[in-house]
């Protein structure tokens, strides 16, 4: 990696002042280390955020929902009793990501701004779209782990396992720069798939995520997360699903949010699957229909058609788990 200056700001203001086009903010440093080693980034300065106070809290604000500091580690989210009780899908996603060692280092803020794990992206040798190049090497290349939806431009899948349940549960992010703070719904935070190039989020060079907010769940609501990987230890999902549902007094589903991860360049909202659930009891029949609907519109590549069967199964299982949670 290229030599860089290390800075240790002690306040948010100092950190923001140090940021800019030639600086990179460092939280857990897990993804950043990989990027530095492969010369995918070569900043003049790293801005270490771990000494900045106040960014590592989980605050349960009752009816105002949950506020999670960007430096909260995945391990803490996975272990937090409140998160597990009220935003179950988030806790489950955090608890199934990567390895215990990585979960102890990786932060939720860093998780949302990770770069793609596509193996062409991760090799300096391949000047792909996401690195300012002209082509996607995965399209005609080795694409077993790539996108089956919205894969017209870049075929990489979104790397954040936390984004999937956060989106299903209506999260927003608070972004702070020297110009002030703004709050953005998470779905608007990610650059749309078709426009994905070097920039992949709304975050400006001198801006930091300062909070992730989740609304309080309504009575009778529930959520569930299913990760389907090849291995249970240290593996990325082949497919992941987060389902959030509200149920009315009759037990029928009144609102459903079905988000798919690892299947598109951004977390993928399975609208047809949601439609298959609303107005129906959450049972084997509706879950099966939601699973079938979830693969509508898929455009698999040469090697990743198998993901459709996994999506079907995972959606069905997640709906049933959410239905049980809502009882």
């Amino acid at each position, binding site marked *: *990696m*290229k*030599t860089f200056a290390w800075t240790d700001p002690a306040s948010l203001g100092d950190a923001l002042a140090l940021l800019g086009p030639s600086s990179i903010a460092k939280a857990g440093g897990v993804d950043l280390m990989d990027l530095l080693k492969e010369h995918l980034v070569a900043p003049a300065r790293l801005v270490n955020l771990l000494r900045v106070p106040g960014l590592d809290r989980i605050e349960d604000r009752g009816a105002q929902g949950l506020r999670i500091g960007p430096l909260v580690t995945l391990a803490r989210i996975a272990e937090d009793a409140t998160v597990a009780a009220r935003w179950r899908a988030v806790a489950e996603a955090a608890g199934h990501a990567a*390895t215990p060692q990585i979960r102890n280092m990786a932060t939720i803020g860093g998780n949302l701004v990770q770069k793609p*794990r596509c*193996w*062409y992206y991760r*090799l300096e*040798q*391949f000047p792909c779209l996401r690195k300012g190049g002209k082509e996607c*090497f995965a399209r*005609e*290349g*080795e694409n*077993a*782990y790539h996108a089956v939806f919205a894969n017209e431009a870049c075929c990489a899948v979104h790397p954040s396992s936390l984004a999937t349940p956060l989106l299903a549960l209506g999260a927003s992010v608070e972004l702070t720069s020297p110009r002030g703070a703004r709050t953005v719904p998470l779905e608007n935070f990610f650059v749309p798939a078709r426009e994905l190039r070097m920039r992949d989020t709304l975050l400006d060079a001198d801006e930091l995520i300062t909070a992730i907010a989740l609304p309080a769940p309504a009575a009778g609501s529930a959520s569930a997360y299913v990760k*389907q990987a*090849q*291995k*249970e*230890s*240290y*593996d*990325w999902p*082949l497919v992941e699903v987060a389902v959030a549902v509200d149920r009315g007094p009759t037990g029928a589903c009144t609102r459903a949010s079905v988000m798919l991860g690892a299947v598109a360049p951004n977390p993928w909202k399975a609208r047809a699957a949601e439609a298959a659930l609303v107005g129906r009891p959450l049972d084997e029949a509706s879950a099966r229909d939601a699973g079938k609907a979830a693969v509508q519109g898929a455009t698999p590549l040469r*090697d990743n058609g*198998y993901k459709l*069967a*996994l999506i*079907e*199964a*995972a959606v069905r299982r997640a709906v049933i788990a959410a239905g049980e949670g809502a009882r």
Partner: protein
Amino acid sequence: MADVTIRVPSGIAGVDLGEVERTVPADEPPPLPPNDRLSVLGKPTPRLDGRAKVTGAARYTADVRLPGMLFARVVRSTLPHARIRSIDTSAAERAPGVRAVHVVDHLLGGAHLRDPKQEGPATYPVVRYVGQPILAVAAVSAAAADDAARLVRIDYEPLPFVVDVEEARKPGAPLVFPGAADQGGSAGGGGGPAGVPQTGNVRGPARSGPHGSKGLGDVERGFAEADVVVEGTFRTQVQTHSAMETHGVVADWGADGLTVYASTQGTSTVRDEMAEVLDLPKSKVRVLTEFMGGGFGAKFGAGNFGVLAARLSQKAKAPVRLMLDRREEHESVGNRPSSVARIRIGAKKDGTLTAIHFVSYGTAGTGTGAGAGGPAKNLYPCPNVLVEESDVFTNAGPAAAFRAPGHPQGAFGLEQTIDDLAEKLGIDPLALRDRIDVDDPAEAWAAASARRVERRIGAEKIAWSRRRPPASDRGPVKRGIGVAQALWYRFVNLDSACEVRIGRDGSVEVLSAVQDIGGGIRTAMAQVVAEELGIRPQDVVVRIGDTAFPPGPPSGGSVTTGSLTPAVRNAAYRAKQEMLRAAGVPGTASGDDASIRRVAPRMRIEQVSAHAVRGDDYGGFAGEGKRRGMGIGAYGGVQFAEVAVDVETGVVKVERIVAVHDCGRPLNPLAVRSQIHGGVIQGLSYALYENRVLDRASGWMLNANFETYKIAGAREIPSIEVHLIEEYRGRSSTDAGGIGEPSTVATAAAVANAVHNATGVRVRELPMTPERVLTALAPQREAMR
């Protein structure tokens, strides 16, 4: 000295243990009774170095730091096939901290043109794969070396290339070599036979059969005589060795010669190759391997990296550390070749085999050795057997010997085809094996008697009787049980030597150049000496991993324990005789009167010592023409797998493995078990996860890491139950053997047979990914809709 006749244990403990007469040299130690009558051997003994390893005190090659040591970085090819027109190292040489640059002039490893003139004159070795070493830079820090390496400019003339094995076989495919090419074998096996015909990239077929024949009987006649013929085509992937410690050395070329700290399976083989390549007398090259972090067959020679480090050290006049990174490790220093095998087996209605025909091809990249016909030739005796194996050259890193070369891939197809035969005949798979797995009267090296016992033990432990017809479970998760068998050969390395010293203060040392690659030879040596001298293993100082000591065997082919421990016992026995002589005690003394505690202080000299070398097997070596170094009896091994297959996701979970094995006389059951665990885990990881992915458009390995090169992790490890049998054959003064290789041969095949029992479908390709399992299940899934 006249030979004497002794009676030594023979048979399987608890089954048919008796004695056999052997005529041996008169200075051999007395017969060693079975383990139950010994005090140290056969008793679970914690590794002498276990504490050092778990506390981090053990110093591996990667930990070696010498005063003034430089750090090296290799510059590697970014193209899969090219001529190098020119190399500009001037900017790198001027970079801060750089002390030396050296360009590779002769490539080690892989195949080489039989006639180098076919390629015309070349200043630099022709590049044939991405990651081929071109030069290296040594600098005062790893960072300085990395930065300087990026300043090297290489002007390539790109050549057409092919990385896909199917494409490479086609007429008109780009040629990896412009003419016929051969590769020598390595100390750990691997490499293909020399002089095989070659057309385009396809080298072969090499035809062979049992007993060193070019084919036994006539397979077509055998199929004509058969009542039933089964056949299938099976594919296996390229697997990389993925040892935790990468290849690497610290080389220190000084006035006294070259000292190399090496992560190797063969201190002696590294010494020999360094001496040859660098034109030094062997006495001027010293190789040290105090602790070693895994090799699995890929770490025997000097290596291009090792020669580069030595040359850099020579130029810079300073020690040079060159440890490969994980990408280099995956790409450039070996792998298990792929295989595509078409297997046909003919049999009579009662299961009697009439023909086995095994036709395979595979790629060892720019190397050779993709043959996988060993199990087809040697597991089940049959009157008509033909194996036809071809290597297909591709522009990919050369293969190297890998834990039982050819055998996990060969067993994967063969053992599934045997199960298919059982199904077609309506015979239970174990009952069929009882019928056809019999010792070949023409071969002294066979393991059928051991496997017969192992099948019985394993069937009881796994509760084979509860095995149900396929797809018996309701719901998406189907469970099943499968079995598969192993074989490996009892190779003996005759250069295995050691010295045992007894001091007047009663201290005992044993010395050998042998390296402990994790199998536990350090502890086994101490046990053997302790048993012979009546002391405790922890009272023996074991000095190994240094070519300054008597030569040790390279640790490959599962030879270490069987080769070295007889020499250790003989040296200990002779040292004790020397001690008695030096103390004036009659050689007939026994018990406390002959003990070290009593006798050593009475020696008239400070130290006695004895040296011993592994001799011929008792009763001579086995096989036709008494093949030198092929012991009597082979290794067996039977493994049972229990799996759960989710038919909606295609995910296979191995829940339990019962591994029943033999390794002659087990010396340290604790270490043997540990090695079987390793073999099972590596086999399971091969069965389900590991797979080298090459980009067909560029030749780059896309998953040269531990993130997307998937290896079984903690949650993938099933319950593993190991059962050992004690199999005595009176082969040597310890009658011990190895277990590294037999323990990994059957695992993938057992898992595949269990998947079939669970689901009713065969997955004929490794690794058994969700995609492949779902594809195999697709006809069934359609029917269920």
